[in-house]
């Protein structure tokens, strides 16, 4: 009964993704609040979450827009944050590459860090599962993520219009960023890249048009990659 096993794969993915509600809800709400406080209207806030649908990149764009950075710098920085998803796309392709193009497009559109990680883990554990079940698992894991991201953003935007400035929500965005970085410091190479990024941001603080961020990021990526290469060479 392929229909039944596809259905159970969907539910299995949904159960696996459920805990991430606790991550997506606060991040989405913080984005909605922060974007509203920064001066975006409801349509623009929702435009970000519906069309871009990528938390870290949205926060990056929002922060640079708050600093009135040039449009091109906003775009390059936010897209640079999303470049990690090239890896996700490459990792999903061996398993989902034969799905119809519209399904692959939908997979791409709703790709978060979490459904990627859960799905690749599942596909590696059970590579023999037919492709439709793999797709069903992916969309199961996506269900507590993508719709909740939109809902949470909307809630945050509506709340943001009501919350007075003395609640120090100016600092919610840096805290949200730190909450993304802390768990990502998995290896020495990641830590070295992050440290380089901090030091170079200070060195380049006076560079105009917020270009210092891009310079610091480029150097930090090189440091991370180089340390990984050397450590792999030794091992």
């Amino acid at each position: 009964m392929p229909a039944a096993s596809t259905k159970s794969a969907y539910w299995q993915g949904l159960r696996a993704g459920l805990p991430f509600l606790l991550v997506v809800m606060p991040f989405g709400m913080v984005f909605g609040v922060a974007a509203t406080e920064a001066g975006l209207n409801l349509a623009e806030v929702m435009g970000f979450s519906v069309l871009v649908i990528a938390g870290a990149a949205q926060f990056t764009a929002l922060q640079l827009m708050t600093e009135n950075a040039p449009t091109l710098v906003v775009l390059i920085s936010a897209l640079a944050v999303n470049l990690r998803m090239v890896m996700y796309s490459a990792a999903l392709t061996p398993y989902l590459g034969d799905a119809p193009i519209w399904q692959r497009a939908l997979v791409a559109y709703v790709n978060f860090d979490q459904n990627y990680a859960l799905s690749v883990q599942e596909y590696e554990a059970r590579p023999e599962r037919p492709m439709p079940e793999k797709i069903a698992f992916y969309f199961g894991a996506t269900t507590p993520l993508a719709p909740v991201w939109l809902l949470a953003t909307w809630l945050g935007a509506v709340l943001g219009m009501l919350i007075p400035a003395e609640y120090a929500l100016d600092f919610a965005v840096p805290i949200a960023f730190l909450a993304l970085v802390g768990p990502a410091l998995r290896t020495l190479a990641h830590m070295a890249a992050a440290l380089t990024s901090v030091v170079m941001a200070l060195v380049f603080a006076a560079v105009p048009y917020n270009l210092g961020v891009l310079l610091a990021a480029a150097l930090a990526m090189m440091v991370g990659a180089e340390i990984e290469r050397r450590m792999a060479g030794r091992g």
Partner: protein
Amino acid sequence: MTYSDIEIWLIIVVLAIGTFLIRFSFLGLIGNRKGPPWVLRHLRYTTVSVLPALITPLVLWPDATGGQPDPARLAAAAMALAVGYLMKSAVGAILAGMGTLYLMLYLTG
């Protein structure tokens, strides 16, 4: 923020298209060919390379205090980073960070 409506929507739409193309890259355009290892090696570090550079000035010179370093915000940032790193928990980091901030602001009046 001093962008016109058109500029804001331009940012949203270009970011949306760019992000989709990034996510669709291998799934829809490149297929099962492997990317060069050195490129993939750099991509692993994008998040930890961009975000700290953005965070650093926000933490050291917050707008809310007129660009003066602020003990409450420094402590909140340190707690958020420590909890995020040690517990590998984004939610824990947000709660610890905002909790520390409100506690410090309350204590320092």
